């Protein structure tokens, strides 16, 4: 009994720790005051400001656009890469996989400056190209990592069977292989999106001068002290928190059961 109470208490405490900053921001997004801690009555003023602020809207759009582009490209490249690695000889596959691991275990700042060095040498520094490539370097290895186990689980005979039955290799690839590893591709895609949305450091080192994502904008706002003078950012954070939490809860509550039987056991 004591243990149970202790466990619950611990869980509650940690959850409190995790959610209190978020709650604070959400609560104070409903009052029109410049600083947190100063309650000036309930109002939606900040949300109004937020949606009228063309700059923040542009940044929101940038962030989403970048995440989608990076995720799509990374998923295509990574899926193809994973299939390629999987069917290559060990001598080829091993080094490829090792190199593919580098961005995963590397500190983000090192990846970022390595790309900055490269692009400054080839004069593509701080263009959309360097930005997208930066995000792809961040995301693609994770796509490979999520597709790989699905490839290993796949029954190798089905592909051969399809060919024997007259399918072209393309058909076999798209009708047999892709559907079997599809859950891996999807999770790689989702992971890419979250990685890209979350990223600050690589973006900061590869982005074009006048381009901002939420991360760079908010960090610069802290740096320049405009954070509290742009209280609309609070409304933005609150919205993002709530949207993400609701989306994830719905996604998980709905999709959890089938996935548990289908792909729950990865290895």
């Amino acid at each position, binding site marked *: 009994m004591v243990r149970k109470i202790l*466990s619950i208490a*611990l*869980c509650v405490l*940690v*959850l409190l720790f*995790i959610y209190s*900053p978020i709650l*604070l921001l959400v609560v104070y997004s409903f009052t029109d005051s410049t600083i*947190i801690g100063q309650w000036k009555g309930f109002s939606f003023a900040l949300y109004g400001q937020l949606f009228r602020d063309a700059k923040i809207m542009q940044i929101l759009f940038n962030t989403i656009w970048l995440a989608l582009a990076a995720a799509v490209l990374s998923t295509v*490249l*990574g899926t*193809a*890469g994973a*299939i*390629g690695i999987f*069917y*290559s000889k060990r001598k*080829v596959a091993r080094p490829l996989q*090792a*190199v593919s*691991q580098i961005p*995963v*275990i590397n*500190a*983000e*700042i*090192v990846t970022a400056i390595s*790309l*900055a*060095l490269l692009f400054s*040498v080839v004069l593509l520094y701080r263009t959309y190209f360097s930005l997208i490539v930066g995000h792809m370097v961040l995301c693609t290895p*994770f796509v*490979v*990592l*999520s597709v790989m*186990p699905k490839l290993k689980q796949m029954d190798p005979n089905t592909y051969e069977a399809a060919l024997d039955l007259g399918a072209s290799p393309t058909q076999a*690839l798209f009708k047999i292989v892709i559907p079997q590893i599809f859950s891996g591709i*999807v*999770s*790689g895609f*989702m*992971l890419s999106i979250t*990685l890209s949305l*979350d990223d*600050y*450091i690589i973006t900061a*080192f590869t982005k074009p001068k006048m381009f901002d994502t939420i*991360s760079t904008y*908010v*960090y610069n706002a*802290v*740096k320049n002290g405009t954070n509290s003078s742009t209280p609309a950012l609070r409304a933005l954070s609150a919205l*993002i*928190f709530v949207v993400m*939490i609701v989306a*994830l*809860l719905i996604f*998980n*509550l709905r999709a959890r059961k089938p996935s548990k039987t289908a792909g729950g056991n*990865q290895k």
Partner: protein
Amino acid sequence: MEKIHFSRKQLGIPYALFLALFVVIPMLLILFYAFTATVDGKITFSFANFLNFFTSTAKLSTLLMSFTIAIISTAICLLIAYPIAYILARSRLKKKNVLLMLFILPMWINFVLRITALRELLDLIGLLGSQNYLNVIIGMVYDFLPFMILPLYTTLEKLDNSYLEAASDLGGNKLTVFTKVTFPLSMPGVVSGITMVFMPSMTNYVVSDTLSNFNITILGKLIDEYFTTYDNWHMGSMISIILLFIIFLSMLFSGGFKENKQETRGANLW
């Protein structure tokens, strides 16, 4: 047969090229920059950066301080995350997945936003500006806790109950069962959690800048400064190489090269 394999293998070529261009070459560039110096506009081979790093009080103390902050943050993460993961994994609740979800949800919310929120909270309770080290450690724990909970939960969940039963049947009390069976068996999760937390805690300067009012310099920040303010890419590259060496060592130590990081990043929850 031969031809078919050939075609599927070819699919890896774009990725191989991509890796060569955007991972291998950049890394080589870092290596190149680290061991060169620009003198009068010409790039020459030089060991000066290397020597400078190990003779500079500032850099060594930054290294030491980052290391300390990272170790403390990792230890605290582990101390908080282990019981939580244990409770969740051992509980017989039907909805424990939802509960787990609650703990690792913040992973999907932009970390800059979360850290700014934390900054506001720390400001409100009066810690901001007075307790810089404490704030940074709180920030690191706050940011990386989910990455510790998830791998621990995954290993503890998979743990076969019969081992524990066998251990207690053989006369082990609860403490010995835990120290001799449960904990050793959960080691892969511990190691994977530590690698997920330790390295970012040494380098994620957004956290340290935001929560210490730029008072604390960690290794990642130092690299950033050499690139953006001190304008010495050679030294910045040198520090990166040293950081890479530390990563390499810790990987070797933890055997983390074969970790499934996509799992720790929570891919399987999507």
